[in-house]
């Protein structure tokens, strides 16, 4: 089976600093792939490199069948690969209405029929047309993130890059957004690449995941192995222990 997204030996270098260093992975069509790691591990930089927001210093990123897919950064590529950012307060233009926010990608890609597409996109993310002429400040955090998802989906991409899509949201709203994303993935046969620092969220959403540390991939493993504790690297084990919550004294990890 050919991969929906193939990343080979990717390196992103800023002024000699290797933010991402020799990372390779492949995501099958319709798969949901997770990337976990601490801040500064390079997990978001990988997504940004894939969608052209970070410079690819070395390596190769390919989308779609074989080498015939669109070149990264090209318009055709962006039509296939869209991204949802972490902070819905920062990623929507504060002076534009929802309608204009959603119309923009359609205008860039010269997609006809904006009217019906916008209505449909709003319905799909569960907001309805009543929200169409509101400004971002008139929406709650969860509603804004739904708009950001609608904006990404309005071009009908194959791959959705999700950069901590729920970490700025309250727990109850997080559950709603995660459910929406899962439902959309099944309905639209989307491929997800999801970055998060929350192991529970990633194992809930993704079948396989990659653990990152200091710009390098520590290991790639199925979520099920992680849950069973079938882990090769000590670092993954530390992350796993940490995500189980605080425990008093003896078994707390030694501070570094």
């Amino acid at each position, binding site marked *: 089976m050919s991969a929906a997204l193939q990343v080979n030996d990717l390196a992103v270098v800023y002024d000699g600093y290797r933010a991402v260093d020799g990372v390779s992975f492949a995501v099958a069509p319709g798969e949901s792939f997770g990337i976990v790691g*601490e*801040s500064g591990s390079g997990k978001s930089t990988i997504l940004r490199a894939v969608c052209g927001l970070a410079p690819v210093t070395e390596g190769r990123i390919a989308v779609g069948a074989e080498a015939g897919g669109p070149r990264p950064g090209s318009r055709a590529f962006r039509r296939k690969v869209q991204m949802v950012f972490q902070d819905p307060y920062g990623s929507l233009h504060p002076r534009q209405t929802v309608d204009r926010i959603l119309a923009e990608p359609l205008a860039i890609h010269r997609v006809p029929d904006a009217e019906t597409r916008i209505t449909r996109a709003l319905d799909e993310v569960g907001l309805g047309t009543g929200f169409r002429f509101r400004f971002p400040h008139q929406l709650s*955090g969860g509603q804004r993130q739904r708009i950001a998802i609608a904006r990404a989906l309005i071009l009908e991409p194959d791959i959705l890059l999700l950069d901590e899509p729920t970490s700025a949201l*309250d*727990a*109850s709203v*997080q*559950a*709603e957004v*995660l*459910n929406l994303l*899962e*439902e959309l993935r099944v309905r639209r046969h989307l491929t997800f690449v999801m970055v998060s*620092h*929350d*192991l*529970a*969220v990633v*194992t*809930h*959403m993704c079948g396989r995941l990659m653990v990152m540390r200091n710009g390098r991939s520590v290991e790639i493993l199925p979520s099920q192995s*992680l*849950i069973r504790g079938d882990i090769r690297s000590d670092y993954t084990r*530390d*992350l*796993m222990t*940490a*995500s*189980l*919550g*605080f*425990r*008093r*004294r003896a078994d*707390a*990890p030694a*501070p*570094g």
Partner: protein
Amino acid sequence: MSALLTVEDLRIAFPNRDGDPVEAVRGVSFSLGRERLGIVGESGSGKSQTGRAILGLTPPQAIVTARTLAFDGIDLLKAAPAERRALRGARIGMVLQDPKYSLNPVMTVGDQIVEALQAHENVGDREARERALAMLAAVQIDRPARVFGLYPHEVSGGMGQRVMIAMMLIADPDLLIADEPTSALDVTVQLQVLSILDRLVGERGMGLIFISHDLRLVSSFCDRVLVIYAGRVVEEIAAADLGAAQHPYTRGLLACLPRLGEHRHPLPVLSRDPEWAR
């Protein structure tokens, strides 16, 4: 155990655009001994405003009322500003969410700790420096002398938060209010900071109010948890009994979190009952 802090029917109202008061906190009551109390709620629930009102950091346009707001026998609402200022820092400390914003960016970490100490105690420069270094060591900073001379932008998030804790604890307060102290930190660093906080609070016999949106974290850290919704306490429960929580909001909050090793698709979502906010 005599109560260190008594809060009865605390209400905080902010004027809206038309000048009408809107209550953000609507009748919160609790008392605190030398124990760890967690206050959990979602954004806008009034949890942070409750903490700030105890310190007297409520914005000036807000109206704070309470039947009782007493710290160690002192009526906080009747206390003169100077008296409240004397309590702040010396007897009630506060650790905020993000060390990036709560440390002074143009002063070295060490000087800030020394300043905090000298503001509350009459201590000479040399002794203050020594105590600051000892405090940095107590929050498990490896080379205190080096970190002492660093500026906030030169330290990591976890180290910054340890510096904040050092600064708050150097005056040896009786009560520490920690408002989302670890939310800006990575999970592994979170645990280090929590275990340091846990040890120091335990050793010094302080009271702790731990404000957070993370119900599971709070329940693993605190003795008792107040769950707050729309400015009201909907449930007060011993952390160990959280599994037996009665209120549908508490149960909903616990259920909607994805858990490692559990298959629940879709996740249960919280259906909010307008009755809860009554």
